[in-house]
């Protein structure tokens, strides 16, 4: 079975336990509020997330792992770290997809730094999800957070390179 589904079930069960524990004493009004809000959030989030999934799927069709690896192997040194971080920021598939690409890159003499930068921004920064972050958390917050995350990616890459 798919790990997302297993993890999803664990999360859902934990949330349902919260509901049961809290509402067993009965506060029917609040339970009604929570159900109404849940339904509304579920529908809104579904539409917004589906739109993001469509963009990610389109991206996937045009950027195959092979093409991305071939592209990244062209770069070395500090430029490699920057290009690795920028490329990872565009990629949006689940983290597990990125590890074999990292393995391939290492096997073909890419530096640990480049691989670390690429793998970190793959999950740490999502250019495609940026509009969603603007919408929910505010433009200012999103821009500040992503800038610092990018700087962190470069520093993590340099440290991994220095320590390994």
């Amino acid at each position, binding site marked *: 079975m*798919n790990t*997302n*589904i297993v*993890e*999803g079930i664990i*999360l*859902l069960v934990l*949330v*349902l336990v919260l*509901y049961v524990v809290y509402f067993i004493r009965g506060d029917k009004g*609040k339970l009604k509020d*929570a159900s109404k*809000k*849940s*339904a509304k*959030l579920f529908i*809104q*989030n*579904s*539409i*917004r*997330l*589906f*739109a*993001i*999934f*469509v*963009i*990610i*799927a*389109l991206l996937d*069709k045009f950027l195959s792992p092979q093409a991305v690896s071939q592209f990244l192997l062209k770069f070395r040194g500090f430029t490699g770290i920057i290009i690795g971080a920028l490329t990872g920021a565009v990629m*949006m598939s*689940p*983290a*597990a997809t990125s*590890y074999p690409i*990292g*393995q391939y890159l290492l096997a073909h003499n890419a530096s*640990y730094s480049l691989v670390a930068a690429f793998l*970190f921004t793959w*999950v*740490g920064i*999502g250019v495609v*999800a940026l509009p*969603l*972050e603007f919408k*929910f*958390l505010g433009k200012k*917050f999103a821009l*500040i*957070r992503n800038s*610092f*995350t990018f700087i*962190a990616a470069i*520093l*993590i890459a340099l*440290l*991994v390179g220095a320590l*390994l």
Partner: protein
Amino acid sequence: MKTILKDWAIEIVILLTAIVLAIFNPSKVGSALLSATKTYLNLFIVIVAIALLSSFIVVTIPKQTIGKIIGKQSGIKGVLIGAVFGTLMIGPAYMFFPFFKELRDKGAGANIIATTIGTWAIKIAWIPFSITVLGWKFTLLFNGLIFVFAILSGMLVGAFYKE
């Protein structure tokens, strides 16, 4: 009507993009839609759980309580709670943006939300796979650094972002 357009601008742009691309390359767009649907179905349970969890927090937990636990003034304890939460959670971080919004509205600190999104990059469930593919040295150092830098960059976000 105007507010609906503004509220859903991103989704409308994506829809129009898909339609335009579909005119030129219907088979690629078709298979992209199919895989988007698959992703949605895979994450369906998580999406339901997030909606239930967000509204539970909004309806039952008073603002002062959230502020005390993970507010800006909650100190290192709040930061660690945020960091550990992000480490343990599953799925892509952007799925939880609506949830983070509810927490922010309830008084959660910007520094802590930033830290949580930062440690989201650690995928506990995938660490064994990462070790077999990339080696244990790389995996442990990499994830350790992500944890530390999530806290550091969270602090900087807190310092630069004025609520």
